[in-house]
């Protein structure tokens, strides 16, 4: 009886092993995982990213895929909760056996997931997490966007040189690594340019009443207010700020870029500025083709997060080809060797810190449209 039970168990174990091997090794598909926020407070980020990655892989698959295989994208939702990002990535790696990972937009989420990818030796490319700490997690973690250090410099230069503001107030989201990082980098860069931070107020993601902070800010008479937050709160903040009689421009960064921003803030947003990764006004034919393809497929103008996700997916596919394999270590080295890749968000070179080096744009909000004000290159912020 005993031996028979063991025999049965052994058979089951063997069957399970064969099955899982079958899933991992053979097949005509390369499985790529993506974790993102498809629902919740920053849902448009996740949806744009997913749409654009699918668009990129569809194009590649139509041309025959890479290494003679089709790329299949598996997407997991983390409900806009950083703590769920770890769960999503663990599932993609352990159950679905993906060979590479794309995501996330928000730095807090990427920071939760990156250590898991690193320890499992699964290369991860974040399209748009800008906090410098993300790629410092390890040598399997890359990004195709610039970092917040650069964004802080860019916004400081714009506020000081173009808006000619000397006194600036900051309203920061203390629960977001992205926001807190930008607050520091902007503050340092702005002070170096001779500016003064007259107020430093904070809120937490998910808050909905910002009148107390805005009243305090208004009392210090700033010439501009920097809000390095995400669109859901930003729209509400600007709306309530205008109600309290604040007339100076609110300035933000790429966290503002969402089709929903205008829906939330409406007219209150007119005359506000934010820094971003690309502009849909860019005459480059590759950009215009991407904008048109995306519009045709999803009926929406692609935001910067979509553009970055498109570039991230194409760089990943390109790296598979250059590595000649989907082996984690080989793919990692190929991603790191990316040089002058013609992306829609500019020419992308990955540096030794696994970050992309490229210019940023400043956009002005006018009646729901984002108008290009200026392009600031990495050389320009070096004084």
């Amino acid at each position, binding site marked *: 009886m005993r031996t028979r039970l063991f025999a049965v168990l052994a058979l089951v174990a063997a069957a399970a092993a064969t099955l899982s091997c079958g899933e991992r090794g053979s097949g005509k598909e390369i499985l790529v995982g993506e974790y993102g926020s498809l629902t919740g407070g920053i*849902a448009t980020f996740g949806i744009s990213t997913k749409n654009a990655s699918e668009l990129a892989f569809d194009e590649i698959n139509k041309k025959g895929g890479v290494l003679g295989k089709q790329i299949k994208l598996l997407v997991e939702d983390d409900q806009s909760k950083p703590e769920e990002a770890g769960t999503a990535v663990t599932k993609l790696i352990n159950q679905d056996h993906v060979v590479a990972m794309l995501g996330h937009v928000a730095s807090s989420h990427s920071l939760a997931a990156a250590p898991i990818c690193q320890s499992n030796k699964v290369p991860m490319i974040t399209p748009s997490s800008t906090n410098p700490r993300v790629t410092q997690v390890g040598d399997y973690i890359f990004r195709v966007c610039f970092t917040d250090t650069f964004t802080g410099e860019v916004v400081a230069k714009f506020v000081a040189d173009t808006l000619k503001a000397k006194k600036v107030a900051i309203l920061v989201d203390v629960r977001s690594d992205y926001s807190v990082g930008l607050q520091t980098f902007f503050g340092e860069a702005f002070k170096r340019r001779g500016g003064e931070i007259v107020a430093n107020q904070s809120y937490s993601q998910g808050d909905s009443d910002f009148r107390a902070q805005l009243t*305090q800010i208004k009392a210090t008479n700033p010439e501009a207010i920097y809000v390095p937050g995400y669109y859901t709160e930003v729209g*509400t903040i600007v709306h309530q700020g205008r109600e309290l009689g604040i007339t100076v421009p609110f300035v933000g960064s790429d966290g503002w870029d969402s089709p929903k921003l205008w829906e939330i803030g409406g007219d209150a947003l007119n005359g506000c500025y934010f820094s971003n990764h690309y502009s849909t006004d860019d005459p480059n034919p590759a950009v215009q083709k991407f904008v048109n393809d995306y519009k045709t497929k999803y009926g929406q103008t692609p935001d910067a997060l979509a553009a970055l996700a498109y570039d991230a997916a194409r760089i990943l596919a390109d790296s598979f080809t250059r590595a000649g394999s989907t082996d984690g270590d080989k793919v990692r080295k190929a991603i790191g060797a990316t040089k002058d890749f013609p992306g829609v968000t500019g020419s992308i070179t990955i540096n030794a810190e696994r970050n992309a080096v490229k210019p940023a744009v400043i956009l002005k909000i006018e009646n729901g449209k984002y108008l290009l004000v200026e392009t600031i290159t990495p050389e320009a912020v070096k004084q």
Partner: protein
Amino acid sequence: MTTFLQQLVNGLSLGSIYALIALGYTMVYGVLRLINFAHGDVYMVGAYVGYYASRKLRGDQPSLLSAIFVMLIAMLACAILGILIERLAYRPVRRESRLTLLITAIGVSLLIENAGQLIFGPDPKFFPSLAPRADFVLEGVRVTSEQITVIAVSFLLMILLRFFILKTRTGKAMRAVSFSLDASRLMGISTDKIIGITFALGSALAAAAGVLIGMQIPKIDPLMGIPYGLKAFVAAVLGGIGSVPGAVLGGLLIGISEVMVVGYLSSTYRDAIAFGILILVLLLRPQGLLGRVQKEKV
């Protein structure tokens, strides 16, 4: 000084919302000795009913009449929801231990939150402006018409409630039930009906709070009931749970102290101080500011 007065106005309008929600907690506790944890979620449903009603009713221009209609529809819908919750969830277990009731309440709360995410969608929605708006500036203090509406409507509803409880027969019956459920039944009061009315009233007030917050913030989402419900619960305990004026006082105190903490200290201390106040009150005056001492009957 201007800044302080402006913060006071901000605190008053936030506090009135807490007070409206706290009233529902306190009334239900008064008659059933139950903390109705689903109450914050009824408030959320009120905001959503208001949102859908205003999108249907609102013409091209915001008008006062449609605003009033929207509010009445939301209050009516939530009154019905309140009665349903009581009938379906609480009545069957009313005779069980207090713990059973409490756990049922938590279950109802989770049910409404998750059903809300399914039905309304988990993404936040944005309230259209309902009433025509105007701002008043007095000595540098800016008061928006929304803030005035929030404060005025809250106080009007609270006065009406007080009148209802003190002057009408039903109100008298409610007070009797809250004094002793069994004795009231012996005296011929239909206690089931009175409990139903209490839930309806409390839920209607929460719905009003939901529409008011929608007008003011103007962002609503299916989990918005959690923070507001929790704060309102603290407000009810602070004022003395079971006491109607206590709920109003507690709501205003929590609202104003929150705004002042955010304004003059830091937003990170906001909840710590709100709950710190709660702990202090419970230590020094366990019956709450305006509550009566009740001897536990054995």
